[in-house]
């Protein structure tokens, strides 16, 4: 059984493409400028693991980290 996933958006890298928000709205939010950040503390609820990896693999700026706790 894999550990729980955690996501983090690197604020220095994010340029607001908003691909993560479009693919995984449960896991990402945008600020008033359209730049992304993880929802809450970045813990990925069970069942949304694929969406976390999908968002990561579509970020043009490679700004999303997914780690296993």
């Amino acid at each position, binding site marked *: 059984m894999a550990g729980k996933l955690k996501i983090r958006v690197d604020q220095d890298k994010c340029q607001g*493409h908003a691909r993560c928000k479009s693919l995984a709205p449960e896991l990402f939010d945008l600020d008033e400028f*359209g730049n992304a950040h993880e929802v809450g503390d970045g813990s990925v609820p069970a069942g949304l693991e694929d969406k976390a990896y999908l968002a990561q*693999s579509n970020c043009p700026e490679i700004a999303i980290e997914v780690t296993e706790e």
Partner: protein
Amino acid sequence: MSDSASIMPEHPPVTDWVNDFDHTDPAWTENPFPIWEKLRAASPVVHTERFLGCYMPTTYQAVKEISYDTDHFSSRRVIVRDVRPDITARAPPITSDPPEHKPAKQLLLPPFTPDAMKKLEPRVRAICNELIDEFIADGGCDAAARYTKHIPVRAIAHMLGIPEKDSDLFIKWIHGILELGIKDDNALMGAVREMTGYFIGHIEQRRKNPTDDLISTLMNARDKDGQPLADEHVLGSLRLLLIAGIDTTWSAIGSSLWHLAKTPSDRERLVKEPELMPLAVEELLRAYSPVTMAREVMKETTISGCPVKPGNMVLLSFPAANRDPAMFPDADKVVIDRKENRHAAFGLGIHRCVGSNLARMEMTVAIEEWLKRIPDFRLDPAGKVTWSEGTVRGPRQLPVLFGKAR
């Protein structure tokens, strides 16, 4: 007004693409993909003596390196042209470098977030249906002239708070700047002058009667010292929004319909599985990215191991990067449900297109509404598809017939 003295000599046809490329050559305009493949096979960065000296990165990696390197590459000129006159008409933030870039960009970001676009979406759906109403009974149409051309211009006019009926004027200016302007300086300067005069009129009106549109937003903006923006800054940003917001998305919607017209399997899939639209829009953006940008080399450096020298421009081809097989498996195929797609259609780094959320919304809505009303259509074998030249690539004539082929 333009006179013959301002028009540069005709470009000789290209015979040696690797050492003498030209993005205004008819072969490039018609079908650039095999040319990019040839250039990429030769080197990650190629050079031409045309345009007073210009490089082109041919791989995703090289395009990315240049996009991130604002130290060696300036955005003060964003179109590769035959001439490099003194810089007069700036258009912040697209023509800005750090540190001026960030505050100019921050100002424009809030009106273009995905949430802001949701509010505009119903108007765009209505525009699409108004257009379709005009030609659906005809059995076919030039989809570029009757449909895709009008959607972005009306949407951005709506956002700026200027009359949608002035659309033809905007399209004329953009043609002067982005196409004729590469080789004809008077065409470019004339269009910029007319556009500036037009916006000055709208700014004056709003000084007396403030509105809640994007022009007023810019007029009411304050810099970090609490000062309003200089009129020149407001005018520059308005020019940018109008220029960048129109034929770019016109092209993206047009290329998408062109693809769907000749690919029944993708069309049928999108009709049956509308939930695929978000992935499909990204893939169409990757495969037919409309926008090529430019940089100016300020200091000598190396890109992907290739020396790059000041005095040259850079043709920053996001479309070519998006066809790099080292980055995208089956790069030359449209995979309508491609899962992993880090395409660079809207650029990479600090100059990420401020209107990307607007463009995506317009593309999605324009394709959805078209497919709802015209689920079956095909290229008209008696017609000819033509493509725009230069900086923004998309179909300018797209004759299609409605219904299944008999």
